[in-house]
C-alpha cells in the first residue's frame, strides 16, 4: 500500500511494458480498490460523520446489500490496513483509509464540477458519472482537472467567455465528418450513441 502522498490509483508493475496503449485495459484491474470497495469506505466515513459509529449492519442498510456481503467485502480492506474494527465491532477508517476516502471525495467533486460547470452535463447525470469514475481516475488527471478549474475560477469573466464560445461550437455539430475537424471517416457524435438497450424482461 503506497503512502498517502504516493497516490492510490494504480499499483505500479515493475514489469509493465513501456508502451501503455496495449495494456491500458489492464490498469482497470490493477486499481487498488474496486467501485464496491470505494463505496464501503465512503459509507463508513459517512456513517461515522452522521451517527458517530459504523457497524456492518449500518453499512448493509446504507448500501442496500446483505451483511454477509459487507463482511466479505471488508476483509481485504482490513488486510490492506484501510479499515479497523474494535472490540464492539465498530468500524473505523485508518489514516490511510481516511486519506483514500478524502482523495476519492475530492476527485468526485472535481469531476462533478468539470462535467456540470465546464462540459454542461446535467446535474444529476454529472453526479452519476462522477461517482462511476471517482475512484478510477489517476492523480495526474485529477490535478489537471483542478488546474483547469483553477484557471476558470481565477477570472470568472474570462471563463464565461470561453465557455460560452465552446458551448456554441459544441451545439453546432452538423454530422458531416467530411468537413468536421474532429471526425475522421465517421461522425464521432453518432458513434458515441450506443444501440438502444433491450427492454427489461418482466420478472414473473
Amino acid at each position: 500500500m503506497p503512502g498517502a502522498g504516493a497516490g492510490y490509483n494504480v499499483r505500479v508493475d515493475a514489469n509493465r511494458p513501456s508502451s501503455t496503449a496495449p495494456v491500458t485495459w489492464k490498469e482497470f484491474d490493477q486499481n487498488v480498490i474496486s467501485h464496491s470497495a470505494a463505496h464501503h469506505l465512503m459509507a463508513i466515513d459517512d456513517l461515522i460523520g452522521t451517527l458517530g459509529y459504523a457497524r456492518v449492519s449500518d453499512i448493509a442498510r446504507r448500501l442496500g446489500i446483505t451483511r454477509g456481503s459487507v463482511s466479505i467485502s471488508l476483509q481485504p480492506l482490513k488486510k490492506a490496513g484501510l479499515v479497523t474494527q474494535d472490540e464492539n465491532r465498530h468500524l473505523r477508517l485508518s489514516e490511510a483509509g481516511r486519506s483514500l476516502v478524502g482523495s476519492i471525495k475530492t476527485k468526485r467533486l472535481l469531476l462533478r464540477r468539470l462535467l456540470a460547470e465546464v462540459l454542461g452535463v446535467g446535474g444529476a447525470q454529472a453526479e452519476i458519472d462522477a461517482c462511476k469514475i471517482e475512484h478510477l481516475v489517476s492523480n495526474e488527471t485529477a490535478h489537471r482537472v483542478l488546474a483547469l478549474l483553477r484557471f476558470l475560477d481565477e477570472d470568472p469573466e474570462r471563463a464565461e467567455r470561453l465557455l460560452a464560445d465552446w458551448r456554441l461550437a459544441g451545439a453546432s455539430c452538423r454530422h458531416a465528418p467530411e468537413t468536421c475537424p474532429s471526425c475522421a471517416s465517421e461522425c464521432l457524435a453518432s458513434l458515441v450513441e450506443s444501440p438502444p438497450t433491450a427492454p427489461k424482461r418482466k420478472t414473473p
Partner: protein
Amino acid sequence: MTTLKKTDVIQELNRLYAEEIEAALRYFHLLHAVRGLDLLLVGPKLKEAHRETIEHAEVIARKIRTLGGVPMLRVSLELDATPVDGRQALELALTVEEAALEAYQDCLRRVEGDVGLEDFIRQQIAVESEHVAELKQLLLD
C-alpha cells in the same frame, strides 16, 4: 403486531431471506472452489451449511407468505474462480455465519413485541451461535 407494521416485519424478513440465500450460494460456490484433499475435510461441513441455509431461507419465505407477502430477493454477488484451501473455506464460512448471527440479533431488536417472531429469531440466534462456535473450534491452531 404491537410495535411494527406488517410491511416492516416483511421487510425485516426479506433482509434475512437475502442473507440466507446469499450464504447458500456462497457455500455452494465454496464447495466447488476447495481443491485437493482438503475437500474431504471441509466438503461435508460446507454441504451441510448449504443445506441448512436453504432450509432457513425456506422457513423465512413461509413466514413472509403467512404474513400475506411474497418474498423479495435482492442479492448482489460475484464469486470469482479463485481456488481456496480448507482453512480459507472455513474462515469464509465463519465470516458468513457471523454476519448471519448479527443479522438475526439486529432483527430481534427490531421485532421486539412480536412474540411469535421473537421466538423464531431467538431460535435462529441459537442455531447460528452454535455454527459460529463450531467453526471457531475447527479453526483453532
